């Protein structure tokens, strides 16, 4: 899923820390606001806004972290509102619902592990490009502002 891309560019200590923090933001938000899927996205978006004028390396990783959270938002929001409609509405617990929670959990877990790995590698100054999100980030984030 992740691949390390060797580049001639070596980020400074400060850049590597900021880029790594963009991933850590989403992890902290997961711990703080697990029931509310939107919190992860807000946290990474806020971090991106703060660094949108940063260096290419920092911006690139902020966008990759943001995009990965955006797709999880869709999956988690469906699970969240499905749960709310069971607790407060007319829906009842079904096999489909439990299966959905498991599928969502697996995707969240993969994302969680990938995020930790990327945060560590980025902190070391390595450029990690995710499958799909890396390519998507390349399309959005250009070297010049």
């Amino acid at each position, binding site marked *: 899923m992740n691949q390390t891309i060797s580049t001639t560019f070596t980020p400074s200590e400060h850049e590597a820390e900021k880029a790594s923090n963009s991933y850590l933001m989403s992890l902290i938000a997961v711990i703080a606001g697990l029931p509310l899927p939107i919190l992860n996205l807000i946290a990474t978006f806020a971090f991106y806004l703060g660094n949108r004028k940063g260096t290419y390396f920092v911006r690139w990783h902020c966008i990759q972290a943001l995009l990965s959270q955006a797709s999880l938002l869709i999956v988690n929001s469906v699970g969240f509102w499905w749960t709310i409609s069971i607790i407060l509405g*007319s829906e*009842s*617990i079904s*096999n489909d619902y*439990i299966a*959905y929670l*498991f599928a969502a959990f697996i*995707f969240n877990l993969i994302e969680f592990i990938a995020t930790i790995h990327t945060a560590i590698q980025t902190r070391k100054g390595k450029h990690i490009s995710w499958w799909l999100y890396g*390519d998507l980030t390349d*399309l959005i984030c250009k070297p010049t502002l």
Partner: protein
Amino acid sequence: MKKVFAQALLLIALFLASWFAFQQIDWMKIFHVEQATKKTEEKLGDLFWDLIQKTEKVNHNKFVERSLDSLVSRICTANDIARENIKIHVIEKDDVNAFAFPGGHLIIYTGLILSAENEAELCGVICHEMAHIERNHVMKKMVKELGLSVLISMTSGNSGSELPRKAVSMLSSSAFDRKLEHEADQFAVDYLIKAQIPTEPFAEFLYKLAEKDNAINGYLSWIGTHPEPKERAEFILDYGKGKPEKAESILSKGNWDKIQDELKNE
């Protein structure tokens, strides 16, 4: 761009495939969801029934009990409903009311039986309440109105007596939401048709109660708590039009009259 699009599609397909794969496992059985729900329902039902027995006068007339049992048994047999799932009780009260509560309990007030002109009218109301039980409307309503945590605390006996009293009062004096009431009417008509009981008397019963003088509306709880009786009656007439082709009465005219006499004399 094409590559990203293809990857995105593949990711969506992967998610759907994993969801589909998980769906193949019977989680409801693994987690005992149905048994747990049933146990909670039964506990709540017993709790509410104990409360009703303490606060209301239960009619134990054997003839009335046997006659109602015949009506419910016919409806259950014809509709593949387990007879033991429906526990019918008669309460001595002038209000024209009937309601269901968890655990398959169905309460009918004597006022409602006395207001019905024939068994088909009464069967219409019974079928409507049975539909609420069978379609799980009762638990849905309770979860919606009281919340899951309150219901669980009630079953563990940590809620005192005030909450169960409020819950019974809520179930006996308020309707389900419009969608659930409509669904209950639709299923009631289906039950009646399969049990070869005419559907028109159910609609007529609604018309009749709706047109009663406002002065006595205080007693017409069942109609007062249910939405748009005329609209419902029209739906029942339309939905059950021409069905069942052949109707068969369950009780003889003499037995029906005897029920009325016995209840009037008590």
